[in-house]
Protein backbone atom coordinates (compact mmCIF):
# COMPACT_ATOMS: atom_id res chain seq x y z
CA UNK A 1 0.00 0.00 0.00
CA UNK A 2 1.29 3.45 -0.94
CA UNK A 3 2.59 5.69 1.86
CA UNK A 4 1.16 9.18 2.08
CA UNK A 5 1.99 12.14 4.26
CA UNK A 6 -0.75 13.39 6.62
CA UNK A 7 -1.58 16.27 4.23
CA UNK A 8 -1.73 13.99 1.20
CA UNK A 9 -3.89 11.51 3.04
CA UNK A 10 -6.24 14.28 4.16
CA UNK A 11 -6.53 15.60 0.62
CA UNK A 12 -7.37 12.11 -0.63
CA UNK A 13 -9.89 11.64 2.18
CA UNK A 14 -11.65 14.84 1.14
CA UNK A 15 -11.89 13.87 -2.50
CA UNK A 16 -14.99 11.66 -3.04
CA UNK A 17 -13.17 9.78 -5.79
CA UNK A 18 -10.26 8.68 -3.59
CA UNK A 19 -12.01 8.77 -0.21
CA UNK A 20 -12.68 5.08 0.26
CA UNK A 21 -9.22 4.04 -0.85
CA UNK A 22 -7.63 6.65 1.42
CA UNK A 23 -9.76 5.46 4.31
CA UNK A 24 -8.46 1.94 3.77
CA UNK A 25 -4.95 3.38 4.19
CA UNK A 26 -6.07 5.03 7.41
CA UNK A 27 -7.54 1.78 8.72
CA UNK A 28 -4.38 -0.14 7.84
CA UNK A 29 -2.26 2.47 9.60
CA UNK A 30 -4.21 2.84 12.84
CA UNK A 31 -6.47 -0.16 13.39
CA UNK A 32 -4.00 -2.17 15.48
CA UNK A 33 -2.93 0.74 17.69
CA UNK A 34 -6.53 1.70 18.30
CA UNK A 35 -7.49 -1.90 19.00
CA UNK A 36 -4.93 -2.10 21.82
CA UNK A 37 -6.01 1.23 23.23
CA UNK A 38 -9.62 0.04 23.38
CA UNK A 39 -8.65 -3.42 24.64
CA UNK A 40 -6.82 -1.94 27.63
CA UNK A 41 -9.93 0.00 28.52
CA UNK A 42 -12.65 -2.64 28.09
CA UNK A 43 -10.42 -5.74 28.52
CA UNK A 44 -12.55 -8.19 26.53
CA UNK A 45 -11.50 -9.01 22.96
CA UNK A 46 -15.05 -9.33 21.62
CA UNK A 47 -16.07 -5.94 23.01
CA UNK A 48 -12.87 -4.34 21.73
CA UNK A 49 -13.54 -5.67 18.26
CA UNK A 50 -17.10 -4.29 18.26
CA UNK A 51 -15.97 -0.90 19.58
CA UNK A 52 -13.16 -0.68 17.02
CA UNK A 53 -15.61 -1.21 14.17
CA UNK A 54 -17.87 1.44 15.65
CA UNK A 55 -14.90 3.83 15.88
CA UNK A 56 -14.09 3.44 12.20
CA UNK A 57 -17.74 3.74 11.18
CA UNK A 58 -17.93 7.00 13.14
CA UNK A 59 -14.69 8.21 11.57
CA UNK A 60 -15.96 7.27 8.09
CA UNK A 61 -19.29 9.05 8.48
CA UNK A 62 -17.67 12.16 9.98
CA UNK A 63 -14.53 12.40 7.87
CA UNK A 64 -16.13 15.16 5.73
CA UNK A 65 -16.47 17.30 8.86
CA UNK A 66 -12.87 16.76 9.95
CA UNK A 67 -11.22 20.14 9.47
CA UNK A 68 -7.66 19.05 10.19
CA UNK A 69 -7.35 21.15 13.35
CA UNK A 70 -5.73 18.19 15.07
CA UNK A 71 -3.74 15.27 13.76
CA UNK A 72 -5.67 12.34 12.31
CA UNK A 73 -4.15 10.10 15.01
CA UNK A 74 -5.37 12.42 17.78
CA UNK A 75 -8.83 12.56 16.26
CA UNK A 76 -9.05 8.76 15.95
CA UNK A 77 -7.76 8.23 19.49
CA UNK A 78 -10.38 10.65 20.80
CA UNK A 79 -13.16 8.75 19.05
CA UNK A 80 -11.78 5.44 20.37
CA UNK A 81 -11.55 6.72 23.95
CA UNK A 82 -15.02 8.27 23.84
CA UNK A 83 -16.51 5.09 22.42
CA UNK A 84 -14.77 2.97 25.09
CA UNK A 85 -15.95 5.16 27.97
CA UNK A 86 -19.47 5.32 26.51
CA UNK A 87 -19.46 1.52 26.22
CA UNK A 88 -18.35 1.07 29.85
CA UNK A 89 -20.93 3.55 31.13
CA UNK A 90 -23.68 1.85 29.11
CA UNK A 91 -22.71 -1.56 30.51
CA UNK A 92 -22.71 -0.19 34.05
CA UNK A 93 -26.15 1.36 33.57
CA UNK A 94 -27.55 -1.77 31.89
CA UNK A 95 -26.32 -4.00 34.73
CA UNK A 96 -27.20 -1.45 37.41
CA UNK A 97 -23.65 -1.54 38.72
CA UNK A 98 -22.70 0.86 41.48
CA UNK A 99 -19.38 2.71 41.50
CA UNK A 100 -18.05 0.32 44.17
CA UNK A 101 -18.77 -2.71 41.99
CA UNK A 102 -17.06 -1.32 38.92
CA UNK A 103 -13.91 -3.30 39.54
CA UNK A 104 -15.63 -6.63 39.94
CA UNK A 105 -17.65 -6.00 36.78
CA UNK A 106 -14.51 -5.48 34.70
CA UNK A 107 -12.51 -8.09 36.56
CA UNK A 108 -15.09 -10.76 35.80
CA UNK A 109 -14.82 -9.82 32.12
CA UNK A 110 -11.05 -10.19 32.32
CA UNK A 111 -11.19 -13.55 34.05
CA UNK A 112 -13.72 -14.85 31.56
CA UNK A 113 -11.64 -13.74 28.59
CA UNK A 114 -9.84 -16.60 26.86
CA UNK A 115 -7.49 -14.07 25.26
CA UNK A 116 -5.75 -13.10 28.46
CA UNK A 117 -2.47 -14.91 29.00
CA UNK A 118 -1.05 -12.97 31.91
CA UNK A 119 0.56 -14.62 34.95
CA UNK A 120 -0.70 -14.07 38.50
CA UNK A 121 1.38 -10.92 38.97
CA UNK A 122 0.03 -9.43 35.73
CA UNK A 123 -3.50 -10.34 36.76
CA UNK A 124 -2.89 -8.60 40.07
CA UNK A 125 -1.60 -5.54 38.22
CA UNK A 126 -4.77 -5.52 36.10
CA UNK A 127 -6.84 -5.70 39.30
CA UNK A 128 -4.83 -2.77 40.68
CA UNK A 129 -5.37 -0.77 37.48
CA UNK A 130 -9.10 -1.44 37.73
CA UNK A 131 -9.24 0.39 41.04
CA UNK A 132 -8.49 3.63 39.19
CA UNK A 133 -11.18 5.89 37.76
CA UNK A 134 -11.63 5.55 33.97
CA UNK A 135 -9.64 8.62 33.00
CA UNK A 136 -6.79 7.95 35.44
CA UNK A 137 -6.68 4.38 34.19
CA UNK A 138 -6.36 5.69 30.69
CA UNK A 139 -3.53 8.04 31.67
CA UNK A 140 -1.68 5.24 33.44
CA UNK A 141 -2.02 2.83 30.53
CA UNK A 142 -0.98 5.38 27.92
CA UNK A 143 2.11 6.32 29.89
CA UNK A 144 3.12 3.05 31.51
CA UNK A 145 2.40 0.54 28.75
CA UNK A 146 2.41 2.65 25.58
CA UNK A 147 5.10 5.08 26.81
CA UNK A 148 3.26 7.89 25.12
CA UNK A 149 4.61 11.43 25.48
CA UNK A 150 2.68 13.72 27.82
CA UNK A 151 2.31 16.29 25.01
CA UNK A 152 0.57 13.74 22.78
CA UNK A 153 -1.60 12.56 25.65
CA UNK A 154 -2.47 16.18 26.37
CA UNK A 155 -3.80 16.63 22.83
CA UNK A 156 -5.81 13.41 22.89
CA UNK A 157 -7.30 13.86 26.35
CA UNK A 158 -7.61 17.69 26.17
CA UNK A 159 -5.88 17.94 29.55
CA UNK A 160 -2.82 19.96 30.53
CA UNK A 161 0.55 18.24 30.76
CA UNK A 162 0.80 19.23 34.43
CA UNK A 163 -2.55 17.63 35.25
CA UNK A 164 -1.56 14.47 33.37
CA UNK A 165 1.75 14.22 35.26
CA UNK A 166 -0.08 14.61 38.56
CA UNK A 167 -2.71 12.06 37.53
CA UNK A 168 -0.04 9.53 36.52
CA UNK A 169 1.89 10.10 39.73
CA UNK A 170 -1.25 9.44 41.83
CA UNK A 171 -2.12 6.40 39.74
CA UNK A 172 1.33 4.85 40.29
CA UNK A 173 1.05 5.54 44.02
CA UNK A 174 -2.41 3.91 44.23
CA UNK A 175 -1.20 0.88 42.29
CA UNK A 176 1.90 0.51 44.43
CA UNK A 177 -0.29 0.67 47.56
CA UNK A 178 -2.70 -1.89 46.13
CA UNK A 179 0.16 -4.25 45.27
CA UNK A 180 1.71 -3.84 48.72
CA UNK A 181 -1.63 -4.41 50.48
CA UNK A 182 -2.30 -7.52 48.38
CA UNK A 183 0.77 -9.30 49.76
Amino acid at each position, binding site marked *: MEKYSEEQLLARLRD*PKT*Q*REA*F*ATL*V*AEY*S*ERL*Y*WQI*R*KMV*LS*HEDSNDI*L*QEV*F*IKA*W*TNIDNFRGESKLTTWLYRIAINESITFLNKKRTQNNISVDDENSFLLSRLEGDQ*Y*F*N*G*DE*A*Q*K*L*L*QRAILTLPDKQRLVFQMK*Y*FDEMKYEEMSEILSTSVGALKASYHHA*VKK*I*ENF*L*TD*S*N
Partner: protein
Amino acid sequence: MNKLSEIDKSNPFTVPEDYFSRLNEQIMNCLPEKEAIEPQKVTMWDRVKPWIYMAAMFLGFFFAIQFLTKETGNHAGAGQTAINFTDDYWSTVQISEEEFYQYLEEQLVRDGYYDYIYNQFYMN
Protein backbone atom coordinates in the same frame (compact mmCIF):
# COMPACT_ATOMS: atom_id res chain seq x y z
CA MET B 1 6.59 -8.99 47.21
CA ASN B 2 4.98 -7.52 44.08
CA LYS B 3 6.00 -4.05 43.10
CA LEU B 4 5.12 -2.31 39.89
CA SER B 5 8.67 -2.43 38.54
CA GLU B 6 8.91 -6.16 39.26
CA ILE B 7 5.86 -7.11 37.20
CA ASP B 8 6.37 -8.16 33.60
CA LYS B 9 5.43 -5.16 31.47
CA SER B 10 4.74 -7.19 28.33
CA ASN B 11 1.23 -7.26 26.94
CA PRO B 12 -0.77 -10.03 28.68
CA PHE B 13 -3.65 -9.75 26.20
CA THR B 14 -3.82 -11.85 23.07
CA VAL B 15 -6.04 -11.96 20.00
CA PRO B 16 -7.45 -14.81 17.88
CA GLU B 17 -5.15 -16.16 15.21
CA ASP B 18 -4.87 -14.04 12.05
CA TYR B 19 -7.08 -11.44 13.69
CA PHE B 20 -5.06 -8.45 12.54
CA SER B 21 -4.54 -9.77 9.03
CA ARG B 22 -8.32 -9.92 8.55
CA LEU B 23 -9.16 -6.86 10.62
CA ASN B 24 -8.75 -4.17 7.97
CA GLU B 25 -10.88 -6.03 5.44
CA GLN B 26 -13.50 -6.67 8.09
CA ILE B 27 -13.63 -2.97 9.00
CA MET B 28 -13.79 -1.82 5.39
CA ASN B 29 -16.62 -4.28 4.68
CA CYS B 30 -18.79 -2.89 7.46
CA LEU B 31 -18.50 0.75 6.37
CA PRO B 32 -21.79 2.15 5.09
CA GLU B 33 -21.98 3.37 1.50
CA LYS B 34 -21.95 7.12 1.21
CA GLU B 35 -24.55 8.76 -0.94
CA ALA B 36 -22.92 10.49 -3.86
CA ILE B 37 -23.84 14.14 -3.59
CA GLU B 38 -24.76 15.50 -7.02
CA PRO B 39 -23.24 18.94 -7.44
CA GLN B 40 -26.10 21.42 -7.83
CA LYS B 41 -26.39 23.11 -11.22
CA VAL B 42 -25.78 26.83 -10.87
CA THR B 43 -28.03 28.85 -13.17
CA MET B 44 -27.33 32.33 -14.52
CA TRP B 45 -29.99 33.74 -12.20
CA ASP B 46 -28.28 32.09 -9.18
CA ARG B 47 -25.03 33.79 -10.14
CA VAL B 48 -26.41 37.29 -10.68
CA LYS B 49 -28.97 37.14 -7.84
CA PRO B 50 -26.67 38.45 -5.10
CA TRP B 51 -25.49 41.31 -7.31
CA ILE B 52 -29.04 42.28 -8.22
CA TYR B 53 -30.11 42.18 -4.57
CA MET B 54 -27.14 44.32 -3.63
CA ALA B 55 -27.83 46.83 -6.40
CA ALA B 56 -31.50 47.03 -5.35
CA MET B 57 -30.44 47.62 -1.76
CA PHE B 58 -28.09 50.44 -2.76
CA LEU B 59 -30.78 52.02 -4.95
CA GLY B 60 -33.20 51.85 -2.02
CA PHE B 61 -30.66 53.54 0.20
CA PHE B 62 -29.97 56.17 -2.44
CA PHE B 63 -33.65 57.11 -2.86
CA ALA B 64 -34.30 57.04 0.86
CA ILE B 65 -31.38 59.38 1.48
CA GLN B 66 -32.48 61.62 -1.40
CA PHE B 67 -36.01 61.83 -0.03
CA LEU B 68 -34.92 62.49 3.53
CA THR B 69 -32.37 65.17 2.65
CA LYS B 70 -34.95 66.93 0.45
CA GLU B 71 -37.57 66.90 3.20
CA THR B 72 -35.26 68.20 5.91
CA GLY B 73 -33.86 70.76 3.39
CA ASN B 74 -37.37 72.18 2.79
CA HIS B 75 -38.12 72.42 6.47
CA ALA B 76 -34.81 74.02 7.15
CA GLY B 77 -35.38 76.55 4.30
CA ALA B 78 -38.80 77.64 5.60
CA GLY B 79 -37.50 78.08 9.09
CA GLN B 80 -34.55 79.99 7.83
CA THR B 81 -36.81 82.42 5.84
CA ALA B 82 -39.03 83.10 8.87
CA ILE B 83 -36.03 83.77 11.03
CA ASN B 84 -34.56 86.07 8.41
CA PHE B 85 -37.87 87.91 8.04
CA THR B 86 -38.33 88.58 11.77
CA ASP B 87 -34.69 89.48 12.12
CA ASP B 88 -34.97 91.97 9.27
CA TYR B 89 -38.24 93.42 10.59
CA TRP B 90 -37.05 94.03 14.12
CA SER B 91 -33.71 95.32 12.95
CA THR B 92 -35.56 98.27 11.33
CA VAL B 93 -37.86 98.94 14.27
CA GLN B 94 -36.44 101.57 16.58
CA ILE B 95 -39.03 101.42 19.38
CA SER B 96 -38.95 99.72 22.79
CA GLU B 97 -41.43 97.06 23.83
CA GLU B 98 -43.22 99.55 26.11
CA GLU B 99 -43.62 102.05 23.27
CA PHE B 100 -44.97 99.28 21.06
CA TYR B 101 -47.74 98.40 23.55
CA GLN B 102 -48.53 102.07 24.04
CA TYR B 103 -48.97 102.40 20.29
CA LEU B 104 -51.28 99.39 20.15
CA GLU B 105 -53.41 100.82 22.96
CA GLU B 106 -53.71 104.20 21.22
CA GLN B 107 -54.74 102.45 18.05
CA LEU B 108 -57.46 100.56 19.90
CA VAL B 109 -58.74 103.70 21.60
CA ARG B 110 -58.71 105.55 18.30
CA ASP B 111 -60.55 102.71 16.58
CA GLY B 112 -63.09 102.74 19.39
CA TYR B 113 -63.59 106.49 18.93
CA TYR B 114 -64.07 106.15 15.18
CA ASP B 115 -66.59 103.35 15.77
CA TYR B 116 -68.47 105.64 18.18
CA ILE B 117 -68.58 108.58 15.73
CA TYR B 118 -69.59 106.24 12.92
CA ASN B 119 -72.41 104.86 14.97
CA GLN B 120 -73.57 108.33 16.13
CA PHE B 121 -73.72 110.02 12.74
CA TYR B 122 -74.36 107.29 10.22
CA MET B 123 -76.28 104.59 11.98
CA ASN B 124 -78.90 106.87 13.66
